[in-house]
C-alpha cells in the first residue's frame, strides 16, 4: 500500500450514468467510461485490512481476494489483478456488472466512510482483460476420461462447466433455450448486461472444450436414462424459475404478466432484431409493477425504454430507512433504501401496499385495487403487516407485471424422473458436497439454493465442480 492514509483523503467515486433522456432511448449499458487513473485512485482507498470483511463470510461469496487486486490495480499491475480475480471468480465481467456487492456493504471503510468501489474496480479489471486479449482459453493439460453433463447454462452451470473442464473432464452443457446463457441471456436486460459480453465468455468456454447442446430440454428431449448412460456424473443447474404468483380476483385478466416472461420477451426481441408479439410492449401504456426488488426494477427500466406512459411500483414492506437500519449493523447486508437507475428514469414507488384485486374491461386489466398496510407487533417480538382499514384505493393501469420473487425450481420432467429428493422449500436437497439423494447427480445454483445472487451461483458451480471431481476420482479407485 503506497499511502496508508489515502482512505482519509480520497473520496469514493463510481462511473457516471449517461443522462436519463439519452439512455432511455437505447438498450445498451449506460455508464460513462472512466479514466484508468481514476480507477487506480478508487483502488487506493482500500485499507488492506488485517481482516478484510469484504472477502470473508460477511462479504464476497466467491471470496475474491479483494485487497490483493486492489493493491495490484493501484500499482497498475492489471494483468496480475486479473489473474487474482480469476483465481476465485470465473466471470468477473458478470459480477462486476450485476452483483449487488455484499463486499461493499461489509467493507471496513464503510464503518466510518463510504466503502471502496469494489464492484466497479472488478468490472474494470475484467473488461480490461477482454480488451487486452488476456482472457484466453485454458484447456486442460490432460484428459481424465470422465464425462460430466451440466444441465442449465446459467451462471452456476457455466461456472461448474468451466471448472470441470479445466480439471480435464469432458463436459457437455445442456440448455433448453436456443442459446446458452440461461438467466444471463434471457433474464437480465441488455442495459445491464450487453449480451456481447456474455458471448465472449462463452467463446472461451467453447475453446476450452466445453460442449454446448442448446435447445434440448433434458428430461423431455433426452431421457434421464440416456443422460445417465452417457455421462459419469450430472450437475443440475436449472435455476429457480418458478415465479411467485398473486392469487387475487382478476388475475386472469389480459395484460397481467410474470416479470420474467416480460423480460425474456424483450431479450428475445433484441436478439432476433425484430419485434415478437408473444407479449405486448409497454409502449404508451400505464404500467404497474408489483414487487419492489431487482426484478421489478429491471422491469421498470425495460418499460421506460419501451416507451411506457407511466411506471409505478408497489412494495408490500414499509419504506426502509435512508441509511443502514439498526437491525442490520455493519457488516451485515443492510436494510436500507436503495434507488436504482430505473427509479431515476421515471418510476414511482409506493410502500406498504398490498394488491387486493384487478378489474378490467374486455378481458384486459384496467384497474388495480389495493390497500395500505400497517405494522403490528406480535407477542414473540416479530411483527406482521396488516391492512389499515379505510385506506383502500384504486389505480388505473394497462399492464401489470408481477415481480414478487421465485419459489424454487420448476418441477420439470427431469426432476421427476431423476427422483431426486427436494427440501422443504421445494429446492433440490443436497449435502454439503452438492450431492443429491441420487448417486452421481449433483446440484448447484438456484435450483439447489433457491433464487439468489449470480455470485452465489458462481460459487455453487465452483464448489459443485470440486465435489464432482473428487467423487469421480474416488469412484475410479
Amino acid at each position: 500500500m503506497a499511502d496508508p492514509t489515502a482512505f482519509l483523503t480520497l473520496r469514493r467515486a463510481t462511473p457516471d450514468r449517461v443522462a436519463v433522456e439519452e439512455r432511455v432511448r437505447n438498450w445498451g449499458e449506460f455508464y460513462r467510461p472512466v479514466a484508468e487513473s481514476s480507477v487506480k485512485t478508487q483502488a487506493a482507498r482500500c485499507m488492506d485490512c488485517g481482516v478484510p470483511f469484504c472477502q470473508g463470510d460477511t462479504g464476497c461469496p466467491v471470496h475474491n481476494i479483494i485487497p490483493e487486486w486492489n493493491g495490484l490495480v493501484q500499482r497498475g499491475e492489471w494483468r496480475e489483478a486479473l489473474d487474482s480475480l480469476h483465481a476465485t471468480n470465473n466471470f468477473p465481467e458478470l459480477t462486476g456488472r450485476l452483483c449487488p456487492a455484499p463486499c461493499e456493504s461489509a467493507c471496513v471503510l464503510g464503518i466510518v466512510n463510504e466503502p471502496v468501489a469494489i464492484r466497479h474496480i472488478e468490472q474494470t479489471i475484467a473488461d480490461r482483460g477482454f480488451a487486452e486479449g488476456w482472457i484466453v482459453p485454458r484447456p486442460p493439460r490432460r484428459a481424465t476420461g470422465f464425462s460430466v453433463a451440466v444441465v442449465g447454462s446459467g451462471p452456476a452451470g457455466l461456472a461448474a462447466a468451466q471448472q470441470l473442464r479445466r480439471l480435464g473432464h469432458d463436459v457437455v452443457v445442456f440448455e433448453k433455450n436456443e442459446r446458452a446463457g440461461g438467466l444471463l441471456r434471457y433474464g437480465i436486460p441488455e442495459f445491464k448486461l450487453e449480451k456481447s459480453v456474455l458471448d465472449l465468455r462463452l467463446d472461451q468456454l467453447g475453446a476450452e472444450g466445453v460442449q454446448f447442446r442448446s435447445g434440448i430440454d433434458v428430461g423431455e428431449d433426452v431421457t434421464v436414462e440416456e443422460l445417465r448412460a452417457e455421462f459419469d456424473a450430472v450437475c443440475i443447474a436449472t435455476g429457480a424459475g418458478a415465479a411467485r404468483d398473486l392469487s387475487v380476483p382478476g388475475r386472469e385478466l389480459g395484460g397481467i404478466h410474470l416479470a420474467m416472461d416480460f423480460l425474456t420477451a424483450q431479450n428475445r426481441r433484441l436478439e432476433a432484431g425484430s419485434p415478437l408479439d408473444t407479449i405486448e410492449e409497454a409502449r404508451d401504456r400505464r404500467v404497474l409493477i408489483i414487487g419492489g426488488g431487482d426484478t421489478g426494477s429491471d422491469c421498470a427500466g425495460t418499460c421506460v425504454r419501451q416507451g411506457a406512459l407511466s411506471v409505478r411500483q408497489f412494495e408490500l414492506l414499509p419504506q426502509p430507512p435512508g441509511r443502514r437500519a439498526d437491525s442490520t449493523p455493519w457488516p451485515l447486508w443492510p436494510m436500507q433504501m436503495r434507488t436504482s437507475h430505473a427509479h431515476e428514469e421515471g418510476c414511482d414507488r409506493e410502500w406498504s401496499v398490498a394488491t387486493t384485486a384487478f378489474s378490467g374491461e374486455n378481458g384486459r386489466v384496467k384497474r388495480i385495487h389495493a390497500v395500505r398496510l400497517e405494522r403490528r407487533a406480535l407477542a414473540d417480538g416479530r411483527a406482521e403487516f396488516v391492512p389499515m382499514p379505510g385506506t383502500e384505493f384504486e389505480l388505473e393501469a394497462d399492464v401489470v407485471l408481477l415481480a414478487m420473487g421465485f419459489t424454487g425450481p420448476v418441477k420439470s420432467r427431469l426432476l421427476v424422473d431423476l427422483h431426486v429428493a427436494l427440501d422443504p422449500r421445494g429446492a433440490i436437497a443436497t449435502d454439503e458436497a452438492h450431492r443429491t439423494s441420487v448417486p452421481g447427480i449433483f446440484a448447484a445454483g438456484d435450483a439447489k439454493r433457491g433464487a439468489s445472487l449470480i455470485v452465489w451461483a458462481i460459487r455453487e458451480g465452483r464448489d459443485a465442480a470440486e465435489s464432482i471431481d473428487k467423487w469421480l476420482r474416488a469412484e475410479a479407485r
Partner: protein
Amino acid sequence: MTEKQGLYDPAYEHDACGIGFVAHIHGVRSRDVVEKSLELLRNLTHRSAVAADACTGDGAGILLQIPHLFLRRVCSPVGIALPDAGSYGVGMVLLPSRPADRAACERVVESIVADEGCSALGWRDVPVEDDVLSAATRRGRPTMRQIFVARMGVSRDVDPSYSFEVALYVIRRRIETALREIPSGHNCYLASFSSRTVVYKGMLRPDQLMPFYTDLSEPDLTSAIALVHSRFSTNTFPSWRLAHPYRFLCHNGEINTLRGNLTWMRVREGIMSSSRFGKRLAEMLPVCGENQSDSASLDNALELLTLAGRPLAHAMAMLVPEAWEGHGTMSAERKAFYEYHASVMEPWDGPAAVAFTDGRQVAAMLDRNGLRPARYVVTADDFVVLSSEAGALDIPVANIRAKGRLEPGKMLVVNTTQGRILDDEAIKTELASVRPYRRWVAEQRIDLETLVADRNAAIQGEGAALETDRADSEHSMPLMARQQIFGYTADELKMVLGPMAEAGEEPAGSMGNDTPLAVLSRRPQLLSSYFRQMFAQVTNPAIDPIREQLVMSLAMNLGPQHNLLEETAEHAKQIRIAQPVLSEHEIDALRGVTDPVLRAVTLRALFPVMDADSVNVAGGSVERGVALDVALQALCRKASEAVAAGCGVLILSDRGIGPDQAPIPSPLAVSAVHHHLIREGLRWRVSLVAESGEAREVSHIALLLAYGASAVHPYVALETVAALARPEAAGDKPHGTAAKERYVKALGKGLLKIMSKMGISTLQSYCGAQLWEAVGLNSTLIDRHFTGTPSRVGGIGMELIAEETLRRHGSAFEVATDVPRLEAGGEYQYRAQGEHHNWNPMTIAKLQHATRGDSYTTFKEFSKLANDETRDQSTLRGLLDFVEREPIPLDQVEPASAITRRFCTGAMSFGSLSAEAHETLAIAMNRLGGRSNSGEGGEDPARFGTERNSAIKQVASARFGVTAEYIVSADELQIKISQGAKPGEGGQLPGHKVDAVIARIRHSTAGVTLISPPPHHDIYSIEDLAQLIYDLKAIAPKAAVSVKLVSEAGVGTIAAGVAKARADLILISGDSGGTGASPLSSIMRAGSPWELGLAETQQTLVINGLRGRVRLQTDGQLKTGRDVVVAAMLGADEFGFATAPLIVEGCVIMRKCHLNTCPVGIATQDPELRARFAGQPEHVVNYFFFIAEEVREIMARLGVRTLDALIGRTDMLRAIPSSEHAKSGTLDLSALLHLAVPAVRTRPDRVTRHHVRLRLNNSEEEGGLNSLLLERAEPALDRGEQVKQSVLITNSDRAVGATLSGEIARRYGNRGLPHDTITVRLTGSAGQSFGAFAAKGLTLDLEGEANDYIGKGLSGGKLIIRHPRTAQFIADQTVLVGNTALYGATSGEAYIAGVAGERFAVRNSGAIAVVEGVGDHGCEYMTGGTVVVLGRTGRNFAAGMSGGIAFVLDEFGELQQQCNSGMVELAPVTVSAERELLRRLVEQHARLTGSARAKRELGQWDRSVRHFVAVVPKEYRKALERQSDGAPASTGVRRGLFMGEARHG
C-alpha cells in the same frame, strides 16, 4: 532435588546471588580474611532468598586455602597424622546420611585413591550444628566428612604441586564416574578435592554458614584467600551441591548458551589430548557432568583448562571473552588473542560476575555486557576486598588505599605468591604476548570475502563462468513451482520478504497471532513452525542489539576444530565469515576451496516422492514416513563417509528437487546430521552449512543455526527477493542485487534480535545452543534428531512431516490449468482461503453486535462460534473438556460481581491507544470492579483518583511517566518483564507519533523518538527483581506488586523465583496475545501458549509450596466464559483480556496499529480518526458481565459454587481426542493436566491450589531506616515545617527515602513540597536504590558511597553524594556510586562528587545531574534533563539518547571515540545561555558537595569551558527548533532545553 513431573522440570532452575572475596595481597594467612569474608557474606543476605518456610536458605558457601595448622590440630585426635602442608589433599565430601550408603560411597573413594597410588590418611567428621537449620533442610542434610589424601608415587614434575593437583583431579573424576555406578552414588558429592583449597558450603542462608560449620569459627582456621557466595535460586529445592563456590569459582549470572557449550565441549572431547593427563584423559570425560548447573559446568571447564596448563586468567579470558570484535582502541595483539581463541572455543555467553581462584591467585571478572555489579577496595594494610556491593564490609576510610569497580569484560587478578595486583590491561597484555597469535591468525585464517574476491578474479580472468554444483532437474522448474514445493505463500511475499528486501528490516505487525498452533493447523506447516523461540526473563537480561551493538557479533568460523588443550598455529586454520547468510557467490566460493582440510562436500537432503495421487490412501502415510526416515539415515551415513574421506565443511543441500524428489525439511536434515555426527564422535571435524530452499524468515535461519548449522544459503528466498524486486515491478525500490543485500541485512538484524532476547551476544555461542522449544513434535523424533529440546505435549513424527512436505510438493504438480499462483497463506492477514483465524469477520461482528445491543442471546452465538473454533482447530484449550458432575441451581453460584473482580484489561499504553479508547476501558473496569492497566506510557495525572484512573499501573523498561505520584495512585504495580507479542524485546515510538500530550505524559519532547530498552536496567537478575519489588513496596506499601511473564518452557521455575522475590501476583501471558506493534517473527514464533505456561507455573508453585502466597493471572486471546473456566482449572485466579475488549470498542483487527491509521479511532492519535471512536464503557461492561454469566452457567453445570473451588482443579478437565484431525490426534496433554502436590507437605490433608493470603507479610519492609525517616518528617508533611535529620546508613539499608517520598506524593502529588523542606544527612555506605523516587522537597545528603540504582525514578528530590572527607584516594577518579544511577528519573537533581558506574542516567527524562566520571553506556536512552560529566566517560556514551543535553569535560579529546553518535551530535559549548547554565550547575555542585574537582575547574573556568563538549540529540534539537515558532533557533534550543529545570537553590 525434586524429580521432573508434569510440566515441571528441575533443569530450568536459575540462580543468581551475591559474590565476594577477601584476600591478602602477599598471601599472609589470617583469621581476619576468614571472618571478614563471612561478614561480607552476611551483609549480602538481601541478595539471596529463602523458601516458603522463611528459614531454608538457597545456598551459601566459602572457599578457603587449606588451613593446615587447624587441620593438623583437629586431625591428630582422630588418628590422622597429616604430612607437611601442600603434600596432602583434602576432599570435602558430602555423603549420604544412611550409614550403609555412606560406607559404600566411602569405599569407592578409598579404593580409587589407593588405585591411583595415593594413600587415604583417614576420614574426619566435619562437625556441624544442626539446630541452625530449618526442619526441612535438616531432613535432607548430607553427612559432611573430609578425607585426607597423601601423595605417594606421583612422579616429580617441574611444578610438583601442580602435578599433585592433576593427580587429585584424576582421582576425583574417577570417583565421580564410579559413584554413578552405585545406587547411593548420586547422593555423594565432592565439594572440593585439592591440596590447595577447601570448600564449605550448603543449603544455608548466609548467616547460617558460620554457625553451621563450626570449623569456620575456630581461631586457628586461617587463610589468605576466601571466596564467598550467597545464592538466590528460582526454585525452593536447591540442593546442597548447587551451592557455590565450586572448586575454582563462584558465579553470579547465567550461562545462556550452556547447551551449546556443553555440546561443543563433548564434540571437542573427541580430539582432546594433553601431555599432563596422558592416557588418563579418557577416564576424565565428559569434562562437564550431566544434570548440573551452568556454574558447575563453567567450573569444570575452567578446572580442565587450568590443570591442562593454561594460566587461570588465560582460561577465563577464552571462556568469557570481552567484546573485542568492534573495539576501536584495542591493541592488535589483544584482538588477535581473542580471534585466535574464537577458533578454539565459543564464548560461554551470558551475564557473569565470576570470582575464581586456584588457591594462589584470586581473581574476578565480568562478562562483556557487565550486567552484574562488582566493587572492590584495596586497603592500606594490603587486603583486597571484592564484592557485589560496596560497603558490604565496613572498612575504615583511612584504611582505603583505592576503590574501584569491575567494568564490562574486565578482569582483576591478585597474585598472592608474587604479592601484586594486576589490572586488566596488564593481564591481557601479558596473555596476548605469550604466543604469536597475531602471526598465526594472519597466516592461517582465511576470510570468505577474500575467497569470493579471488574467485571473481579467476572467473574474469578465464572469461567464462566456473561451473557450479547445481542439479539439472531444477533448472527446468520455474521459481513458482519451487516456491510451491517449499510452501511459499502470497502472504509471506507481501508481508515478509518484500518488506525485508525493500527496507532492510524485519517487518512489523500488530494485534497478536490468532492462528492455530502448527500442530492444530489443517494447512501443511513447515517444520520450523513447530518451534518457538526461547527468551530470557528476569534471571537474565535481554540485550539491545541496536544501541549496544558493540557487544554483538555475527561472525562464524568454518572448518575443523583442534585440540582444546594445546595451542598451535593450525588451530587458527578456519574460514571466517562475517555473518551466516551466504549469497550465491559466497557458497560458490566455499565450494571452490581445495584445501583438503577445509574443502566443502555437498550432500543432497532429498527424499523420494511416493505416489502423489494416493494422499488419502490409508497406510500411505506410513510408507512416506519410512521413505523420509530412510533418506535421512542415508544422509547421516553419507555425512559420516564424507567426514571420513576428509572435508571441513558439509553443505546439506535441498537443491535437486523435482517431480520425484522432495526436500527433507532443512531443520530436520541439519539437526539430524548434527546429532548423528556428535554421536559418532565426528562432529569436530566439520562445519555444517544449510543450502535451503525452505529457509526464508529470520526464525527459519535462526532455527538452523541453533541446531548446528554455521551458515545458511537460502537460495529460493534470494531468488524470490530478486524476482519480487525485478526492475519493472520495483520502480524506485531496490532491485536485483541491492534487494538481496537488503534482505540479507534484514536477516542479520533479525538474528541479532533473536540472540539478544536470549541475552546472547555472539552467534558463535548461539550456534548449537538449541534455544527453542517444540510444540507438537513427538518424543521419538525429538530424542533422535533434536536431542534435548523441550517438547511437552507430544505431537507428530516422521510420517506426518513427510505427509505435509508431500502435500506442498503435490501442489506444484497439479493438473489444473489456472494461472499458477502461490497459495494465499493468510497467516498475517485474514484470507478466506487461507489459514484459520479465531478473530474473523463472523466472530468480530457477533461480538460487536452482542455488546452494543446488550444482547446475551447474541453473545451466546458469539461464544458458541468462538468456542467451536477453538475446539475445532486452533488452541490447546480447545482439546480439553469439562468432566461432567452433579449440577446445582444457578442461583447457588456466587454472583457475577464476584467474578468480574477477577477480570483485568491488558497493558496497552496511552500512546498506542487513543485517550478515548484508553479511558473507556478504565471507566468500564472501575465500574465493574475489575482493573484496567495503564500500559507503559504513563498516565495523565488528571486521571488519578477519578473514575478514569487505571487501577494497574505498569512499570516497564522505559519507565515513561513513572513518577512517585503515578506509583502511589495505583492499586497494583505491574512490572512488565515480557509481553506476549515480543518477549525479550524493546520497542520504539517514532517521533512523528509523539504529540504534545503524549510527550507531556511521558515526560519527553513532542516529535522526538522514544525507545523502550529490551531489559529493565534495574533487573539483570532475580535478586534485582526482588530489589525493584522492594523499592515499589517501599514507596507504595498498599499496592500489590505483580510481575508479567510470558509463557515458555521453564516459566514456572522463573515464577517460583518471582514469588520468592515477594511479588503478590504473577501474570503468565500467552504467546498469542499482544495488541501492540511488534516484529512479525516475534508475534508468530516466540513464546508458547498460555495453557502450557500457566499449567507449568501452577504445578511448580504447588510443588514448591508457594502457590498460596501469590495470585496467578493469565491472558492471551481469552474470549469466552469457557476460556475463563479452563484457565481457572489450569491454575489462574485472575484473567486478562485485551483484544476482545478492543473489539468491543470497535476494533476490527486492521493490524495497522503501528501505522497510526486505525480507522475506528482506537490505535491512533490522529484527531480526525479519534473523532470516529464509537466505543462506550457500557459496551465493555456488558461484555465482562456476559462472560461472568457464562462462567456461572458452567459452574452451575459442574456443581461448583465459587470460582476458588475451581482453581487448579485439572482433575475436572479431560482431554478430548480429535476424531478426524490427524495431527491434533497425536498430542498428549497429560503433562498439562498433571495434578501436582507439594514436595514437602506440612499438612497432608490440604493442598493449596489457589491464592489464599490476601497480602504478603511485609515485615521485612517495615521498620528500618525508611520508617524512621518518615516518622521524623511528620512536621514537614503535616505543616510544611523544615526538618533536618542525620542518620547512619549501611548497604543493607535499601531504597532509603522511598517511603517518605511516597507519602509526599500521596499528599502533594508531583508538585511535592518546597525544595529542601526535609533534609537528611547520611553517613556510610548506602544500599541499593538509594533515593529511589525521591520526591520534591526531600534532600538526601550522603557522605560515604552508594550502590546500584541511586535516584531510580527520581521525582523532584535532590541527592548529594560525596566521598568521606577523610578519604585518602583521589575522589574524582574513584567510583562513588554503582551502576544504573537515575534510571527513569523524571525530575530532580543529583550531585555526585565521584565516579559513577555503567549506564549513568539511563532513560533520564528530566533530572539534572553532575558527576565526575561515568562508566559505559552513560546517558543511554535519555530523553530529557541535563547531565554534566566533569571527567571521563566509558564506551557507548549517549547510545539511543533522543532528548536532553549532556556536557562532558573532555580534557583528553576522547569523547568522539567513546560516544555512540547514532542519534547525537557533539558541539563546543558556545551559546552563552548554555555556558551560563553549565557554570551555574558546576558552582552548585562545588557548593553542595565541596568537590575539589569542581572548584579546580571553576578556578580556571575560561580554560575549562573550552574543554566541555555539549552532546545534543539531533532529533531533539530539531524538535525544539520547531517548537520555537520562528524565534532564532539557538534561543529556542536554550529555552526548550532548560525549560523549568534549573530553578533551584
